[in-house]
């Protein structure tokens, strides 16, 4: 829920910041921060330590390219 709120408040800031936020979200540049935010919001769901940025990147690539993610 916090992340949904986050998305909303971010969208209310000035247009340049909004564009920058959108660009980081859309390219996956902010994926690690989103992951950490998710862990902060629901710590009870996680029994293991958070992945490092490096581990998270490797893990996300593995998930992304194991399924059809590009089209004709």
């Amino acid at each position, binding site marked *: 829920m916090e992340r949904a709120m986050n998305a909303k408040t971010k969208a209310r800031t000035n247009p340049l910041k909004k564009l920058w936020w959108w660009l980081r979200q859309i390219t996956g540049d902010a994926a690690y921060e989103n*992951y950490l935010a998710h862990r902060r919001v629901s710590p009870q769901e996680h029994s293991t330590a958070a992945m490092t*940025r490096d581990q998270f*990147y490797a893990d996300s*690539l593995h998930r992304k390219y194991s399924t*059809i*993610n590009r089209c*004709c």
Partner: protein
Amino acid sequence: MNKALRAIVWVCVSLAGAGALAAIAFERREPLNAVWFVVAAAATYAVFYRFYSAFIAAKVLALDDTRATPAERLDDGKDFVPTNKWVLIGHHFAAIAGPGPLVGPTLAAQFGYMPGTLWLILGAVLGGCVQDFTTLFFSMRRDGKSLGQMAREEVGRRSGLLALLAVLAIMVILLAAVALIVVKALKDSPWGTFTLAMTIPIAILMGVYLRHLRPGRVLEASIIGVTLVMFAVVSGQWVNASPAWSQAFTFSGPALAIAIIIYGFAASALPVWLLLAPRDYLSAFIKIGAILALALGIIFVRPTLQMPPLTRFIDGTGPVFAGKIFPFCFITIACGAVSGFHALIASGTTPKMIMRESDARVVGYGAMLMESFVGVMAMVAACALSPGVYFAINSPAGIVGKTAEAASATIRSWGFAVDPQTMATLAQRVGERTLLDRTGGAPSLAVGMAQIFSGTIGGDRLLSIWYHFAIMFEALFILTVLDAGTRVGRFMVQELGGHIWKPLGRRGWLPGILLSSGLMCGAWGFFLWQGVQDPLGGINSVWPLFGIANQLLACVALVVGTTILLKMRRLRWIWVTLLPMVMLVSVTMTASYQKIFDASPRVGFLSQARVLAAQIASGAIPPDRIAQTQRLILNNRLDAIVTGVLAAMILILIVEAISVWARILFGGKKPVLHESAYIATRWAEGD
């Protein structure tokens, strides 16, 4: 805005759209400006989005924002991530936008601008967008299940298996078709080949940066990569100018085909962070940038379309590809109007990221509208060329003749003005040795785009740079599709192989990786090699196969959608998915039948094989070409079998679907809907 004013605005938008569509649809004496196409597309999209997609959302699917989406219920911060709809539409569009909507309309321009443009716009709003939107919704209601899983659960086991086989078939044929386009675009083009070759070390550099220096900093790495690629495009002219360097980067079609097969094998077997992922980031950036630039360029330059609304080739004798307007215009355009492949993305990552149900409308229906607009722009770019030039670039030497003089004479005999000098000058202006016999659509699209871009920035001085930018843009993301597709195909082969011998199913086992990558590359490499060797240009046989396979997958998605609507007791609305399904089934079945049995050797695979066999028997083929001709005969027979299998798959699917529908409607038993249970959202309205 009050109600009356809103109504007036929508009436005006509808009239503008209808007027512009009518201008495109009716024969005219004076050439039409591209503005009509932009208005026709934008107004039709706006009206259908506002009213038709709203009707589907409210009545047909009954989207429910009080229901928690999988992204909310299963949020794991990795796969299931609630995502802002404007971010998600970007993700989804980047995933669905491929080379298809650029190449298909360019090829279909041989019929004139009218049929292709009308199908691109109307096919999308009534078919493609509906397929994407409904599939996304149904998958979202099933925790993001894939199309294959939904087909198995909702229709039957046979349909589930058919969906899987259709996916594998379409992947193999798609990869061969797009690889062939790259080969045709880079053949004897040192500038283009150098630029594309340079993207490999640039991607590896980005890969190392992203993995080891600044993990996950995608924007930084992409900016570095895009800058280097732009430099590679510009520096290609120096390679082209140097005799030694240009010699080193000049390859024939067969040599390029072998290089691409080896590349595809390496890229799918190497660690994904090294080449595949960074190339994907690079290509996504350049793809979105080039599409935006083309849109702005068309609005700024407002080119006049030189192609007539209809050409004589609607009779099926077209040089770009053979076959009548029905069904081949629809089969050729494929992705720009309806793409079955989108159903795989709409039942893949996207449904796991939707924050609320109503977002599925803008993401599913909206992203396909954008894709359709890309197709319309490609049509504008192709038709803005002089028709003589368009046909000179896109017609294979096997049809128009091997020399510039012969090609020009043939094209002039069709009523389109062109002469060898014009083609030689144009080739020189874009930095190529020749533009004749460059089938596949990419070079003519690049010439069209370069004219529009140079009309905006740089004028004639930058024409060659813009041409090679456009070639690089097309080739770059085609190679990304090739990398990613071969890799996913490899996993599918490994999964299937695992049923025969367990170790083959282990994704990390090196012999398994090498074997499955080899099988996948061998499969698409076979069709690619066949296309490169084909004297009729290859596209004539490979692209229709791709179109049929793609539309077959769309039939699967629409059959699944219709079945689920019936189970949801929305009988009165099933025409929403049923009508596009009927259209696609008739298009694919007619195309399959004609590609196998048509009496014209350029259309029917079997008659082509018969003609070649008769030529050998009568001694018309010189002894040194008999082996090659026998291979062509074998290829044609094999293509006929592949088309037959695809058609059989459609028939089995339809028979199974009709029996399931009959049971739902008349069986008396309550149909089982495999939807996830309703759980109320915890998010307040307006979150």
